[in-house]
């Protein structure tokens, strides 16, 4: 697969948007600007290739339904920020890491293996175990819950798209 050309201006523009959104949500981009700009370039490359910002540090299939968990911000960002102070690709870092200027390290992969993901797809939780007046949907990116017949088109908290929601109850 070829690499689409990404200009510095495109990287700057997306960097500003990601930085603003991160800060508004209480998140922080990695203060190593050169490293972070390179990741933003990777995100733009993937967006051009696949139509969505797949994690630059993971291999995407190009099938959105199989890549949902690694669309940035990925399902693993928050657990990784909690445990390691940075997400897998280190685009996002915790406030502590930012304040202490602690070095950010390459961390273990939390995403299940291909075989595990395939097995999990076969027995996806369907909910309905508890009787509720409405189904409850959970945003896999930020954990937002809502009780409605369908999840919202866009998560009102983190702006993740509807297909990032899973049935919770």
């Amino acid at each position, binding site marked *: 697969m070829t690499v689409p050309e990404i200009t510095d201006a495109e990287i700057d523009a997306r960097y500003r948007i990601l930085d603003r959104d991160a800060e508004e949500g209480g998140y922080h981009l990695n203060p190593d600007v050169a490293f972070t700009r390179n990741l933003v370039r*990777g995100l733009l*490359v993937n967006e051009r290739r696949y139509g969505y910002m797949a994690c*630059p*540090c993971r*291999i995407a299939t190009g099938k959105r339904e199989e890549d949902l968990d690694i669309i940035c911000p990925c399902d693993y960002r928050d657990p990784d920020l909690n445990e390691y102070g940075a997400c897998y690709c280190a685009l996002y870092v915790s406030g502590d890491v930012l304040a202490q200027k602690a070095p950010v390290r390459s961390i273990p992969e939390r*995403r299940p*293996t291909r075989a595990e993901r395939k097995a999990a797809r076969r027995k996806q939780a369907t909910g309905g175990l508890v009787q509720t007046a409405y189904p409850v949907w959970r945003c896999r990116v930020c954990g937002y819950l809502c009780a409605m017949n369908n999840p919202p088109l866009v998560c009102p908290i983190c702006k993740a798209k509807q297909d990032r929601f899973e049935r919770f109850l």
Partner: protein
Amino acid sequence: MKMEHVLGTRKGTVVLYALSTCGWCAKTKALLKEIGVDHSYVYVDLLPQEELEEALQEVERFNPHGSFPTLVIDHKKVIIGFREQEIREALG
């Protein structure tokens, strides 16, 4: 699968499986160059679909997570992620 060969001091067969978009892969690639060790690397995301699958299975044999960067030394020692000290100790 075509790999890029970087000339340097021979320390065995050193193969880096990387992604062209990944920050840690870039750091690992730069470290190998800095150390000056003879190695090959491949950007798995740039391969045609069939070769990509073949490369991914190869990576998974050494590293079940199929994550990047995966560095394989002499077809057996595996270093996953940008582990600078470990890489320097193994190849420096």
